[in-house]
Every structure is written in C-alpha cells, then in structure tokens.
C-alpha cells in the first residue's frame, strides 16, 4: 500500500468523521433525541477505517452493535445514520433498527447484529452464496473479543476454513467484553492463535494505527480474492468511552484508559504522517470544517425527519408480496 496525501487525507477525514459524529451522538443522547443503547466506537476508529479502505463497493460488511463508524465508512450517509438514531422514517432502517441495527442493501452493509457472535454464521452464508454463484467478492465479518467465547465463533471459523470461503474475519480486541477483561474470559488471550488452530491465516496487529490496519487488510483481501480462503485479523484496540452510555467503569483503572488515550488513533496517525513527511500535506482545519458541516447537516436532516406512521407498525414483518 502506498500512502499518498490523498489517501492520508481520506483516512484522517473518515476517522475524524466517526469521532465527531459520535461526540454529537453523546450530546443528542443527553438531550434525549437519541435513546436506547448507544455503543460508541471512539478510540477504535482506525480499525474500521483501515479495514474498509481495502474493500470495493461490492464487498460486504457484517458488523456488531458498535457499528456507527463502519456504517459511515461503508458509505451510508451521516444523514441517514443520524436519522436512524433519531428513530425517523428517513433513517437507514426506517426507524425500526436504531443504533445497533444499521443496514443498507445498496452499500452491502448487513448490520448491526446485537447478539454477540450472531453475525458470524450469517457472514459465512453471504460468502457461501458468493462462492456458489462464482462472484469474486469478499464478506468482512467484524466482531469483538467477547464473541470469541461464543460457540458461533468456533462454528463459523471451522466452516469458513473447511469450505474455503471468501471471508475476512476482523476481531476488534478492545480487551473487554462489556465489563469482563479478556483474561477472565479466555484461557488463551491471543485470539489470532485460535484462528490459526482452524488453519486460517491470521495475524495480530496494532489496531490504533490506521496505516498498519489498512496494510494488513489489503494483503488479506488480496489473498481472499485470489481464492485462497478466509483470513483473520486481530486488531488490538481500546474503547475510550463506556460500554454503552452509562457505565461506572468499575472494571478498569482510569490510568489504563489514559495510557491508551496516548495511542489515540488520530494522534497516532498524525505522528505517523510526521514521520513520513506527509503531515503538512493534510489540511487539518479544512477537514475539521468539512466534518463539522456534514454533522450539522446530518443533525438538521434528522431533526426535520418524519415519523413512521403507527399504521405501518406491522409493515416489514413479512415481505409485502406475502401479506
């Protein structure tokens, strides 16, 4: 991967968009414009941006309930994501999904699964169909370290390897499954080793460094598209905020959070750019303004959005042609 100023600008723009979008979400949550669960990606932006940079439009993404960032990067507009969080008709799931269930058929974004591990078998199926239909496209399946303890994780890795499916597994290892540290959940805390046990080519990498993630994802996707079967990336990352919106964070020390904040993906990226003499080519302030405008427009769009009529409550339980 060659990082030029255009790509560097894109990475910075996407990571900043996620950061500022979610900061706005916190405000909207405080004023009860957004309700329910709201799981923020702040601190983990480099993973989503880096991995998705390696995809083409026809590749699919299956994500978790912490998926605002990936949804935005896959191309679902900030307007329609924000409208969804506001519960409006104009939202990407017409107000029926909410924060944990963002979808777009056009962008091949398959949610938004709020059952830990539940997205993995589904991703296997997407890839199986692609293989059967002989379409050379990849399904990226993103999940957290918590999912690794689930049976569905092991069933899915086995099936993907056994059937040589075009799946890129991405484990966002943020060290905690909600409030339980990985060391209390796993006998083997090196998750990439578990993938290797299924004969899946796997590696562990710095998930705070968007360049490292993008590089690894690009290599993995290339291998998958050459029909070599699945690949596995374990991105070591950290969630800066609570698990959801309210969380006393009794399970981790403030000092640990502060240590990780030094590796903030935005800071890390700036440092990398400086090392590469690319920093001066990034119009930081201009990007900040662009992002601010995008979010301002998204909020205005969501505010102005309409509510689904109550008469349509039962719409989409079954397909229209079947009812």
């Amino acid at each position, binding site marked *: 991967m060659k990082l030029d100023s255009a790509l560097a600008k894109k990475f910075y723009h996407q990571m900043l968009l996620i950061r500022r979008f979610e900061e706005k979400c916190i405000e909207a949550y405080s004023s009860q414009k957004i309700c329910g669960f709201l799981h923020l990606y702040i601190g983990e932006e480099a993973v989503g941006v880096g991995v998705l940079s390696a995809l083409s439009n026809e590749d699919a993404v299956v994500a978790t309930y912490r998926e605002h960032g990936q949804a935005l990067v896959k191309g679902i507009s900030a307007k329609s994501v924000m409208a969804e969080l506001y519960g409006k008709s104009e939202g990407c799931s017409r107000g029926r999904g909410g924060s944990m269930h963002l*979808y777009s058929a056009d962008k091949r974004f398959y949610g938004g*699964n709020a059952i830990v591990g539940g997205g993995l*078998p589904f991703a296997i199926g*997407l890839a199986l169909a692609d293989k*059967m239909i002989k379409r050379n496209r990849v399904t990226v399946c993103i999940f957290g370290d918590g999912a690794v303890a689930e049976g569905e994780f092991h069933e899915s890795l086995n*099936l993907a390897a056994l059937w040589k499916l075009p799946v890129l597994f991405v484990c966002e290892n943020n060290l905690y499954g909600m409030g339980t540290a990985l060391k209390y959940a796993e006998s083997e805390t090196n998750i990439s080793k578990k993938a290797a046990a299924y004969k899946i080519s796997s590696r562990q990498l710095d998930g705070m460094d968007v360049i490292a993630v993008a590089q690894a994802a690009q290599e993995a996707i290339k291998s998958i598209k050459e029909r070599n079967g699945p690949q596995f990336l374990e991105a070591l990352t950290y969630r800066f905020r609570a698990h959801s919106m309210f969380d006393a964070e009794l399970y981790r020390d403030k000092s640990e959070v502060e240590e990780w904040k030094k590796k903030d993906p935005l800071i890390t990226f700036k440092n990398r750019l400086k090392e590469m003499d690319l920093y001066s080519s990034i119009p930081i302030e201009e990007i900040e303004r662009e992002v601010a405008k995008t979010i301002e427009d998204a909020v205005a769009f969501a505010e102005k959005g309409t509510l689904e009529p109550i008469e349509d409550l039962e719409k989409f*339980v079954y*397909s229209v042609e079947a009812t």
Partner: protein
Amino acid sequence: MSENTTYREAVKRAIHKAMKEDERVFLMGEDVGRYGGSYAVSMGFLEEFGSERIIDTPLCESGFTGAGIGAAVNGMRPIVEIMTINFSFLALDQIINSASKLLYMSGGQFNVPIVIRMATGGGNQLGAQHSHSLEGWYAHVPGLKVLTPATVQDAYDMVGLALDHPDPILIFENSNLYNTKGELDTNATPLPIGKAKIHREGKDLTLLTYGVNLLKALKAHERLAKEGIDVEVIDLRSLRPLDDEAIMASVKKTHRVMIVDEGWKSGSISAEIMARINEQAFYELDAPMVRVCSAEVPFPYAEHLERAAMPQVDEIVAMAHKVMEES
C-alpha cells in the same frame, strides 16, 4: 394424475424437482449427503447433484442455519435440514434473532427466503431429548411461518410453496409420517400457505389438529361416527399463520371444539387457538372447549409411559363424548 406413495418419497420428489428447476436451490445439513439424510429423504441426491449443492455440514446447528440465512439473503434458495427439532434449539439464535427479524430491523431491505425443514414428534421410545413436539413455540414468533404437513400431498406441496415464498419458512415433518402412504398428484394446484383443510365434514364437534395427530383424529372420527357423534376434522396445516376464518366458520357450525396437539398445554398453540375462539366466537360455543395434549412431563423412554404421555385415539373419543354431554 395421482398415485399412491409415501410421505418420505413426496418430500424427496419435491426437493428433487426444485433442485432440477432452480439452480439457486441447495440442500444443507447434517448427513444429508453421504448418509442420504437421517430419514433417507435425500438418498441418492449427492450422486445426482454433487457436493456443492448437497452439503454435508459438521454438527453446528447455529453455524449452518446461519449460513443458510446469509446465503438466502445473498441470492440463493437454501433448504436447511435440521436433523430433528430437538437440535434446532441450538440454532434458535439464528432462527429467531436473525431470520425472523432481519426484514423488519432493516426497514424492509433484507428478506430471508430460507426453508428450514426438521423432523418432529415422539412415539418412538427415543427418550426426553429426542421426542419434542415444539412447533407451537416457533409459531409464537412474528416473521416466521410454520408449516406442518400431515398428508403425502402436503409433504410434496409445502416444499414448493415454501421455496416460492420470500420469507423464512419452517416445515415440521413428524417422523412417524415418513412411512405413511397416500395419494400424490404432482400436477394439482397446492392449497396456499395459511389455509386449513377440512378432512371430514361434521355438524356436532369441531376437531382441530395438525401433523401426525390428523391420523389419530381420523380414526377417532370413524369410531365416533358409529357412536352417533358427527365430528368435523380440520387439519390446520399452518400454525403461523393460523386460519382463523376456517376455524371460526367451523365453530359457528358445530358450536363445540376439541383441539388435539402433541405439544404440552401450558403456553401452547392449543392455548392460542382457544384464546382466539374466545375472542372471535365465544357466543357461538355451547360447551367449554377441550383439548387433548401431551402430559406435562419430559417424554419417558418406557413404551407404556410414553404412550400414556401422548394423545391417543381412546382419549380423543372419550373427550368427544365428554364435550358432547355438556348441555
């Protein structure tokens, strides 16, 4: 033109026809290929269609059911065979949290045209973990449709109906039906999903049932006819949706109701049917509704105990007399 054949053969022919006509259709599950299917439904399919379309899976119900759901969303028409309903509990996450909800959660963007078949029912001394009849559980869930073919014709028709359907369909094949014989007309127009079928018209008592208990109900009908009770026997065919219209029409005719269901009573489909009749046709009733269900025990192994735990013809006949004696 119709012919006499087995229920197993009817399911097999329906899948065979679908595989021939639509290359998107494939069969996936435990032992469907080399073994030929645990109930021999797919015997010979592997040789004919190859291992890409007849897929032997490892023992991972959640994994392969979820894979079927993903494949359905991505352009295929999978038939997932779960060896028995007992094992489907391991796939509940995928069936309930994914298949049934995806269309709704996505605001209408992703329908899931999957067919999930499984054997169900007790009566073979297989013990408590292999004798469940919990079709009614699945009927609780919006987004799913639950079919219970009882006849050879339905065993054939329902596979095709389900594959033509845009949403997830569960087909429950009672294992005691596979060897039963009946008439099959492969050119007949199938009765649609959600329509009940009156197998015997009667004026005294409405007997509502589904699956293998249709056979017991028909035997009870014969005996009761000789004893002067004219029973209307209705095969529900589909537990979700229920054919309220057909049920209420019969209640309005006979004014007495018995439900025969191999499920347990508590929180069951029989309870649901009673509630609907109560809501929609209460004043038509001349007597309290009754039901013959399985005893509220895990199914026992010993033959006499298992027999006592399940609905039997004698009990249906006795219950019919009881409900007719109510003034």
